[in-house]
């Protein structure tokens, strides 16, 4: 087991957001978290990446293990540097005062020198050609979707082995959304482990191997994608079918 969350409880101030959830991600898997708004998906990702307060919540119980070792004490910057675990956060959070290119460059901050970056930039650009056009534009003036592309591209540029994506398709045009998901599949086949949070449960489950369903801070269902897609409650509540 690569990443393992054990009955994790977290609070914002005194609002409990997660009531002891447990899930795990194996090497080379695509796992998805689905659930209604406010279920605690983003919170889970924040907690795993050990983001500092005030935005991120406080762990009050449970544990997060990476390769069997607790990472609750790890410095946030080391999550990327040492554990190679990257997050593309909800709401993009790109650096608006930097150009597109600078945003991508910055993402390589923690990488050891000598990595062949140029080819990687190219890979990003072929995934999102629009970014190439806009490479020298101040990124805050990008359109919503363009910013989303940049956020995902940035996460990829950190050269991490595990990718955490929070609603990556938010605000993306369908054509790009599908393109992105195909790309994720391909990355996964190349060995990337992916933890995906997605509103579009249908799409997410078709991509993922396994999934967990969150509801108000609890895991209410889990299983392989097929099981979940077949599960009538899940259908009713989240697949809008």
């Amino acid at each position: 087991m690569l990443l393992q969350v054990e009955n994790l409880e977290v609070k914002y101030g005194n609002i409990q957001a997660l009531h002891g959830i447990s899930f795990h991600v194996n090497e080379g898997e695509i796992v998805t978290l689905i659930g209604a708004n406010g279920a605690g998906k983003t919170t889970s990702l924040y907690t795993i990446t050990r983001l500092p307060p005030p935005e991120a919540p406080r762990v009050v119980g449970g544990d997060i293990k990476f390769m069997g070792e607790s990472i609750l004490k790890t410095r946030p910057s080391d999550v990327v540097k040492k554990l190679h675990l990257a997050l593309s956060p909800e709401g993009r959070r790109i650096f608006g005062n930097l150009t597109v290119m600078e945003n991508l460059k910055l993402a390589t901050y923690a990488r050891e020198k000598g990595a062949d970056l140029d080819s990687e930039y190219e890979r990003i650009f072929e995934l999102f050609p629009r970014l190439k056009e806009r490479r020298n534009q101040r990124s805050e003036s990008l359109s919503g979707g363009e910013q989303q592309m940049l956020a995902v591209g940035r996460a990829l540029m950190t050269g991490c082995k595990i990718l955490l994506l929070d609603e990556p398709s938010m605000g993306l045009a369908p054509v790009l959304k599908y393109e992105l998901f195909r790309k994720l599949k391909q990355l996964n086949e190349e060995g990337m482990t992916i933890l995906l949070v997605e509103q579009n449960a249908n799409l997410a489950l078709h991509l993922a191997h396994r999934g967990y369903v969150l509801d108000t801070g609890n895991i209410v269902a889990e299983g392989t994608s097929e099981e979940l897609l077949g599960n009538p409650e899940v259908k009713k509540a989240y697949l809008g079918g």
Partner: protein
Amino acid sequence: MDFIFQNVLNALQWGSFYALIALGYTLVYGVLRLINFAHGDIFMVGAYISFFVAGFLLGPLAGLSPMMTFLLTVPLTMILTACVGVTLERIAYRPLRRKGAHRLYVVITALMCGLILEYSNLAVLGASRLKFPELVDKQIWNVGGVAITNLKVLVIVAAIAVFLFLQWVVTRTRVGMAMRAISYDKFAIPLMGIPMDNIIVITFILGSGFAGLAGLLFAMSYPVLEPFMGMLIGWKAFIAAVVGGIGDIKGAFVGGFLLGAIEVAVVTVFPSTYRDLFAFTILLLILWMKPTGLFGIPQSTKI
């Protein structure tokens, strides 16, 4: 003619101090969007530190020659002042940041820290002013009717050097890029694997260190030290930084010299009392025409 040149020189020297302090302001601001109102007083502390360092080195214990003293005082002052700045960051600003306090509360804290520095100095060292010893034996060259001292040259060169250095750091290095990123959104910094606190500490080291340098040079040029020497010049330097476009190194540099030039020009033409009036009116007009300063990029609200 030489009258003009003489005043240009005066303006350059006086502007150098504004520039040096403004650079520190802008650097910290450029990273934390924190108006570090204590900066002027860190400059003052720098001057006093240099006074004691120099005093010690010249004194019986070390008994160095003035020149040696100068060469040693520069690094020592910069290091010690940097420590003061970093301490402030650690004990006053960082906790607030951690608690997610509104940035204006950090600004107020900075203001308060400034006052503390001023008055604790007054309380400890007493009210009577200090005389800064002469380190470099002054030479006065007369170039075509223009009197130049080696000190003035030194000051101006220092200002330019510091500017070039900081400009290089902020625009060319990855640390600099990280600095700019932090200023926009701290949240995503760790996600890039960037140790934020280290970057911030580096910023304060640079900012305060050069404030210390400015303090030393100032003490050498105007050798009468008093606890409030940093207040007015600090505020003005800050204004200069903003007019240049706060957060922008180039802006601070230009702004500093601009302010210096305006002040000297006004005084040579009008009674000295018009100095502030004119200076600030001009700055106001500049900001009126370019709301984000000379070099600041207009913030485009994307909706």
